[in-house]
């Protein structure tokens, strides 16, 4: 079993180490492998999945949790407004405008899994001009609180920004580029039927 982590982890005000399996093409179970860290040390207590694991630093920021970073060095911010409050209620609307009156789709997976999803999309280059797309367990896993099964990580407005993402329903005009969906079908990341649903914007 192989592990990898940064040689010299940065110590933030709050640091967690996320161990996650980067390669979860099959049989992935959304269980974050979390290890308590003493500043300056990373302790890997257990690895109960085969595959690659990595250590990722996180930093609590004003509007969410910042992950540093994917294998390619991309930073990611899990935004609070895409998460239910601890009481289980949706967060307050961010504005009164927009298609949903400021309401956002909400993740049904942990912040660490959210980052793992983005990290996988980055590793496997599930990308089109609009950003990254990701699914889990062949598109069968539910990622959002309204049973959304696919996630989008839109292209950053500024290069200095962190990436962020959210679960969503596809529509005929809001869907991964055909090249992404066709590649998923070709390499059996998704079944033919789910791949066609993605192509049609029905997932």
């Amino acid at each position, binding site marked *: 079993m192989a592990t990898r982590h940064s040689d010299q982890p940065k110590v933030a005000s709050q640091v967690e180490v996320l161990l996650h399996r980067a390669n979860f093409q099959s049989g992935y179970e959304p269980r974050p492998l979390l290890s308590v860290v003493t500043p300056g040390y990373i302790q890997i207590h257990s690895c109960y999945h085969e595959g690659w694991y990595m250590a990722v630093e996180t930093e609590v920021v004003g509007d969410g949790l910042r992950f540093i970073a994917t294998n390619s060095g991309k930073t990611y911010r899990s935004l609070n407004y895409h998460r239910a409050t601890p009481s289980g209620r949706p967060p307050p609307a961010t504005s009164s405008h927009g298609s*949903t009156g400021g309401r956002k789709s909400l993740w049904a997976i942990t912040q660490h899994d959210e980052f793992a999803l983005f990290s996988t999309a980055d590793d496997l280059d599930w990308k089109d001009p609009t950003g990254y797309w990701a699914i889990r367990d062949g598109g069968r896993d539910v990622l959002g609180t309204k049973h959304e099964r696919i996630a989008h990580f839109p292209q950053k407005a500024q290069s200095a920004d962190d990436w962020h993402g959210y679960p969503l329903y596809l529509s005929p005009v809001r869907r991964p580029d055909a090249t992404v969906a066709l590649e998923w079908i070709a390499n059996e990341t998704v079944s033919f*039927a789910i791949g066609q649903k993605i192509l049609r914007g029905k997932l």
Partner: protein
Amino acid sequence: MTETASVLIAGDYVDAYLYGGLLLAWDSRGRLMIASTESLADVVSSGFSIPRRSARAAFVDNKLLSIDEAKSSPGEFGFKSLRSADGDVAHVDINSLDCRFFSVADDAVVFDLMATYGHLFISTDEALLSVPFGPFEVGTVEKRIAHRCLSASPRWGAVSASCADKGAWALLGEIGYGRDIRKRTEQIDEKESVRHAWTGSTFLSFSGDNDIDLYTAAAPVRKGQHRIVETFDPVDDSGEWGSIWQVAIDSDASRLRDADFVTAVTGLLIVVGNGRLTATQISTWSRPVDGLYRDVFAMEIGDRVLSLVETASGLVVETDSSLLYLDDQELRPLISRETISLRSYPRSKRHRRTITATVDGGLLVTAVFGENSVRAAT
């Protein structure tokens, strides 16, 4: 009770369309398959011990026996043998059907098939194509619109097409069987906000609760004229639209605003939201009239609704994981598989009770007979 007769033609199919006794299907290898429904009835009859009259009633004529006929006919006229103990449907091997395959547009990513006046319209990622066809033959493919096309719909002698971010386009002109379609193509709306086609008597919506606009709606205003609108918050609008959409707004604004899925079938507005499906009667298509709306039925529905179609025998609902049909105001399972496409043909003489669905593992052909039809006689 509703009687259903279902068979699954095994294979990977993208889309299918029934037209004039022909079953047209697009497969994963980019081929167009044409088979006759007569052939399908023959295979079902011989393969599953179903009387030929019953098989034809289900897949060719779409009409079960009359009560008098049923009483005077001996034996089993139902379709019990098409259902396995675990609820799966009967499988038919494509090679057992009398069918032909054609290479029409090999590399195309196909979104939608539609047949009208002897022409098959193929909506693809790059263009709207049309090709004349007949029993076991196809003509020359013609590119009609050189944009990504999501769907095409026949209506009043014209074909409309939705070209996604290019707006909605219409092919206008008289379409005659055996003649070329007039070459006039008119863009009827090029707003980027117009993101989905109207489908004649229905209006459509996207569901979603994300970062971009929510609803697209389309409705016939009057014969030959349509209005396509998109809105994220219908209540905010001044009501200028004056069509079904406004009827719906007047009918129940909050329900529509919170809806995950909205569509309309003949005379009914269907709204799904907060785990509940509600059908509201619409008394007029052309103008809202206060006080003429009432809920016809409402029911709990756990899954996300992706589409809903009507047959002459009732409604069929596509959810995330299964197809359901409405029977006595209850939703009963038709098949539990991922569905790629679902179609019904309520205005077709031959296929008004039939749905075709491309699902995980095959092409489902189902005849749905309402409670006024005669069920299994034994």
